[in-house]
């Protein structure tokens, strides 16, 4: 589509129009050649514009000692905050372990359930649209409201959860009301709420699966299970890993439900890095220390993300 091949005799009369066409074609060519930069540019620039200042601010603040105040200025202390996080704060170290454990729990639960539900719902059946919409409801509900509803459901003597256990002749459970069980009770809430995310992405992935491999496998006499294991899963893997990636990022940073249900208790048994970070910033006003914790949290999440990104595809990336 290059070159002035379109100009014909009698061109002088049509010169301006031709020139305009040529100019727009040149622009089109330029756009075509530089597509690989033009396409992502708006998104990347927009994101960069919004995150640059916060990143600079947080890193700078992490090197200061500052009690949030209009009177005293931040005091430069170099990497002292980081030293404290790494060696001087057992509470932080415990929070890291607890955070990773919680994340592992909920990711496992949500992936298994989410993929299972996607497989189940990936077919034509009566009520399909409604059912699939209902299935994403938990993700849509405000975490705070859900947290409070669960708080009352989990109440050891007044709550409906234990009531149902007694009806089923099971012993009552302590849920969030004991340091041994609180983390698991919170995991249940998280799994309830976020399984739909995995399901939704897996469903979209299933919907775009090509038909040929299945037809070929059927001709070769493969069973449904073999088809699933050798065709569906590998083809779905990129989509599922991306879903897990985002869920992991959010799970490590889980805040709302922990805050509203246990506030990190009982006895710090549900204190994750983000809860600790929030307290440091907005309850204790240690802005500098909180910023260094934010950087540390970022590092943890980034590390987990890179690991997951590697798992996304065997070949590409």
């Amino acid at each position, binding site marked *: 589509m290059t070159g002035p091949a379109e100009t014909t005799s009698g061109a002088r009369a049509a010169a301006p129009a031709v020139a305009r066409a040529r100019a727009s074609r040149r622009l089109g060519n330029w756009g075509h050649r530089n597509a690989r930069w033009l396409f992502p540019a708006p998104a990347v620039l927009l994101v960069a514009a919004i995150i640059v200042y916060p990143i600079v601010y947080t890193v700078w603040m992490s090197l200061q000692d500052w*009690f949030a*105040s209009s009177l005293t200025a931040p005091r430069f202390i170099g990497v002292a905050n980081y030293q404290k996080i790494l060696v001087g704060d057992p509470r932080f170290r415990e929070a890291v372990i607890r955070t990773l454990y919680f994340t592992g729990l909920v990711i496992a639960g949500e992936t298994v359930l989410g993929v299972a539900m996607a497989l189940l719902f990936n077919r034509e059946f009566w009520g399909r649209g409604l059912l699939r919409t209902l299935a994403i409801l938990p993700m849509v509900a405000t975490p705070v409201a859900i947290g409070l509803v669960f708080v009352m459901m989990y109440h050891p003597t007044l709550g409906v959860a234990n009531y149902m256990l007694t009806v089923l002749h099971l012993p009552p459970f302590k849920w969030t*009301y*004991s340091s041994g069980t*609180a983390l698991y009770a919170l995991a249940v809430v998280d799994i309830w709420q976020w399984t739909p995310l995995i399901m939704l992405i897996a469903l979209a992935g299933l919907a775009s699966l090509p038909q040929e491999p299945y037809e070929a496998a059927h001709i070769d006499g493969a069973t449904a299970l073999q088809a699933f294991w050798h065709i569906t899963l590998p083809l779905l893997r990129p989509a599922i890993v991306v879903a897990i990636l985002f869920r992991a990022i959010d799970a490590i940073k889980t805040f709302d439900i922990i805050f509203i249900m246990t506030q990190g*208790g*009982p*006895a710090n048994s549900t204190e994750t890095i983000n809860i600790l970070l929030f307290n440091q910033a907005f*309850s204790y006003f240690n*802005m500098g220390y909180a910023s260094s914790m934010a950087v540390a949290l970022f590092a943890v999440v980034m590390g987990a993300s890179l690991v997951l990104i590697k798992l996304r595809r065997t070949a590409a990336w």
Partner: protein
Amino acid sequence: MSNRETTLTPRAPSRRTLLRLGGAALATAATGPFVFTPARAQGFNWKRFQGKELFLMLTKHPWVDVLEKNIPEFESLSGMKVKWETLPEIQARQKMTVEMTGGSTGIDAFFTSLHVEKKRFWKAGWYHPLNKFLEDPTLTSPDFDWKDFTDGARAGTTQADGSISALAAFVDANVLFYRKDVFAQKGLTPPKTLAELEQTIAKVHAPPGMYGIVLRGLKNANATQYPSVLFQMGGTYLTPDGKAALDTKEGIAAMDYYTRILRQYAPPGVVNFNWYEASAAFFQGQVAIYMDGVNFASQFEDPQKSKVVGKVGYAMLPSGPGGHFSPIYITGMAVSSASRNKEAAYMFAHWATNKQNAVRELLAGVGVGRTAAWDNPELKAKPKMPADWYQAYQASLKIGRQGLPEIVAVTEYRDIIGVAIQKAIEGAPAAQVCAQAQKEFQELLVRTEG
């Protein structure tokens, strides 16, 4: 919010004031002190800041609910325009922190929870001292009467350096709630001492239908109820020279008592009970005794919410070997140091906490820090709450004592003691958790005080 900073001309009031002062000085110099000059303001004038616009940051609280209804009255009285935002306490504080550290001048006055913020906001320089305003008869209405506030209220809003940071709005005292019917059945009377309390609890404890007692167990939340036992045992937070004092003999005895009665006589799961689970257990009729802030009573007496309406008795907290105290927690209206309309903001704050509004609060069943209001005839004629509630509340105010240590890092302290209490409820020995808390608290003090 975006227009706040652009519609006001910050120079105007000071120019006006300067003119006024200048004119007065000139007139006085020329004609002596007895001649009335038009330039001098004639005492207090509500409409002095007419046309100004104020923005308030308020916390969701029953006291604020009543205030919000009456703000239009202030607007017509003063000719000012008032805008406000009401958020739950933690979000309000968060927003305040972001705005103040972000350099905003948008907030003029705010509702402050002194038991959490007093020293912290003072250190951050966010309270504008009100002393000069209180002493200025042109800014303070003559019937305001600063001395009408209880000693505890005034002490609670004054910093160590004498600067007054806020005007007391709501003073929360801790009292004892009990089931009159259950007590009557067993021939019991409200216990007067901690020892009697434990015996009474044991007598009414009849699980699973009726538990003896419930108190807050959730870390941080429990720190405001804990002094109900700690003080009576003679325990305290700080030594006179400001060091941690949590592991004294009395402190350990208090920790042991508080967690023992919960471990033995409270509903299961109490270790993580915040006020909503604790009060729910009480007003659903599951527990016979509860100790907490006075304002929960309005829920108990609300037939929409409570199963025990009319069955609740109110009494002062039991005394102990160390004395008789009721932990009190004060909230107030403060003026922001970043405000461009400090005097106008002060005018609002002092209107909100004046005698008329105090009576209105009491009529609505919300407590206040003023003394005269309690004797208001209208209140005596149709009280919203039962008589023994008012008696218990007033008497408790008289033995009121600041419930939390007045240090900068109050929230951190609450977390430290809160975790200790939770561990002890779950079975750890009191001496051990107190020793641990003592260590952490002392470290905290060294790091943050001074």
